[in-house]
């Protein structure tokens, strides 16, 4: 008969608390406490990793609640790669369906914003064009970090109000559109932008010509921001 692999037995024990047979044979009365160190390490380290990715969600629900919620998320969507910064994309959707946070309907939007910020932080590098070269470019290529996020809640205001040192109070209501980008100092910028500016940037992200994008709205303020933040790039690396 094929015996289950050792790691399979150990993994099952991490989930259900069953200590694998033959653990700590010299101190069997302590086997459960010793095995529990691994159970705690796995649960705690993954929960911490999720909290690092979604710090505002943690602040909004409190760290104890977050850790309990993280356990549910981890059970449903465990990381499948050792590169933990790539894990958590399913968290916004998970929050939508997680009944205990039904009273905080803005959480998925804020989580989506935090996820997008992480993507921008790690996005590929690109070489910005010199502002005087803009007139030579037909289809401006935006920096890979640039994202426009249409939120059905004031996610940007909530995110800003819950940064360290802020009091968490939000007066904004309704929808917001977030612009997320990597700044020249490599930190990630987050701001709310008006609908027409968002539409213009989305057009450029879709590969529109500058001429076509300019039909949406006056392009000068948007281009000014994009150039200032080094977000219009050459097509090379």
């Amino acid at each position: 008969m094929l015996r289950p692999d050792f790691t399979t037995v150990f993994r099952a024990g991490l989930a259900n608390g069953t200590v694998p047979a033959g653990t700590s044979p010299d101190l069997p009365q302590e086997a459960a406490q010793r095995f529990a160190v691994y159970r705690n390490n796995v649960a705690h380290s993954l929960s911490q990793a999720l909290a690092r990715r979604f710090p505002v969600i943690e602040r909004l629900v409190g760290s104890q609640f977050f850790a309990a919620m993280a356990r549910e998320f981890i059970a449903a969507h465990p990381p499948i790669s050792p590169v933990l910064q790539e894990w958590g994309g399913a968290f916004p959707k998970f929050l939508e369906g997680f009944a205990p946070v039904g009273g905080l309907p803005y959480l998925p939007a804020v989580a989506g914003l935090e996820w997008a910020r992480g993507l921008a932080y790690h996005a590929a590098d690109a070489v910005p064009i010199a502002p005087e070269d803009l007139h030579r470019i037909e289809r401006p290529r935006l920096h890979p970090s640039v994202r426009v996020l249409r939120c059905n809640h004031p996610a940007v205001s909530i995110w800003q109000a819950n940064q360290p040192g802020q009091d968490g109070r939000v007066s904004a209501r309704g929808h917001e559109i977030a612009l997320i980008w990597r700044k020249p100092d490599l930190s990630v910028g987050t701001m709310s932008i008006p609908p027409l500016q968002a539409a213009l940037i989305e057009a450029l992200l879709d590969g529109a010509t500058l001429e076509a994008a300019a039909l949406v709205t006056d392009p000068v303020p948007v281009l000014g921001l994009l150039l200032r933040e080094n977000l219009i790039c050459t097509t090379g690396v």
Partner: protein
Amino acid sequence: MALRAGTGVGFKPQHFTAIQGTAPDLAFFEVHAENYMGAGGAPHAMLTRLRQDYQLSIHGVGLSIGGTHLNSDHLQRLKALCDRYQPDSFSEHLAWSSHGNEFLNDLLPLPYTPQNLDRICDHVDQVQEVLGRRMLLENPATYVTFAESSIPETEFMTRIARRTGCGLLLDVSNVFVSCVNHRTDPLAYLAEFPLDLVDEIHLGGHEEEELPSGPLLIDAHGREVAQPVWALFGHVLDRRGAVATLVEWDNDVPDWATLKAEADRADAMIRERDSHVAA
């Protein structure tokens, strides 16, 4: 390609500005491979900058060498990282951290059996072949032992190194943690450890809990290196001679000055032995 016999520090991004401002006299920085597998941005900019001034050790925490199989996608990403930065050392752990497709984010223990020895040797061979370089394998901190184990840990590691040609990374803190936890003598462990195969040492802080039979030490990397670990480190240096030594502090990371003071302490002990050897 090897780290020089000096002191290194585990790099934390929050220390980057202080490091740039003070240009510390360190031999190397070590980074966790998995934190530098994004496409671009600040992590790569900082690592590229550090690489210009210091030797680099890339330390994997996710390859699961002790698991049932290696994740070949992840191994390819490690190769890309090593090809890009040409580190002076690459190391991983005698542990497993993935089950099936699932990554568990902890260094989990395994029984020291002939079957596991064969499997780990295959994995180390595979890593060294794909990366095109010799790797170092680190001894674990453990909280349990297994009835199934038939080979002492020191012999297990020695046999892996002899069969695969890999080097060893001796984590002196892990030796102390494991030996205290299993009520054995760290000096006896070190007496059996093949110090001639050791190309790097790790030192890190641990936490202490209490069990009915005595203390249970937790390898938490969240505080200063404990006094008995410094003593063991001195003992290893006396026998092994100066060797590249890393101070690691991964949780509750202190300010740069505090971390640098720990590194300075290790460095003073290495230099003391170095001058003895020279004299």
